């Protein structure tokens, strides 16, 4: 495992941390939802990378499941937020 890959992994960690800041801070619920979906996307990418790194197909299955649930969860949350009455 070379230094290039390690640099990439560290940058990826920084990116996910910054996304987590938006997840905590985000003024509206939609900001939080967007940050959560971006986190899910990053995790899918990291899981695929990890599955190629060690020889274990379990990680790819986990990535596929996470991608599916991320999309369905986002759409369901949007439907809920859209129909909710009350203040912003």
């Amino acid at each position, binding site marked *: 495992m*070379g230094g*290039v*890959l390690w*640099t*990439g*992994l560290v*940058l*990826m960690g*920084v*990116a*996910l*941390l*910054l*996304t987590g*800041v*938006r997840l905590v801070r985000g*003024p*509206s619920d*939609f*900001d939080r*939802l*967007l*940050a959560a*979906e*971006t986190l899910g*996307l*990053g995790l*899918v*990418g*990291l899981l*695929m*990378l990890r*599955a*190629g*790194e060690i*020889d274990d*197909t379990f990680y*790819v*299955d986990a*990535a*596929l499941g996470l*991608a*599916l649930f991320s*999309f369905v969860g*986002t*759409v369901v949350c*949007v*439907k809920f*937020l*859209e*129909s909710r009455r009350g203040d*912003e």
Partner: protein
Amino acid sequence: MSELGTEVMSLLADFLALGGALLFLVSAIGLLRLPDFFCRVHAPTKAATLGVLLLGLSAVIRSLSEGDLVWLEDVAILLFVFLTIPVSSQVMARAALRRGVAQAGQTKQAEPNEPSR
């Protein structure tokens, strides 16, 4: 595959992963610094989609150079992500527009052009 070919493939996979991580960093910075939600929805939609493509391509190349069939599932994940990210971001932006999420002052204020249900 020869020894040199494996080295080159591994290096290519590493650099693709680095590129994907850089794109994710760009999308995270955009998510942090853009002024309102409708700008922020733009950053991860483009940058993170391309980033996950590069990370997935890196995994595909590594799987191909090892000679197993995991790359098929990687490609399936990438296809699914490319189909769903535009849908979910469009749904989010439309719902935010209907709910009247605050827009930044210097943008031309947009209204939903259909009656909200």
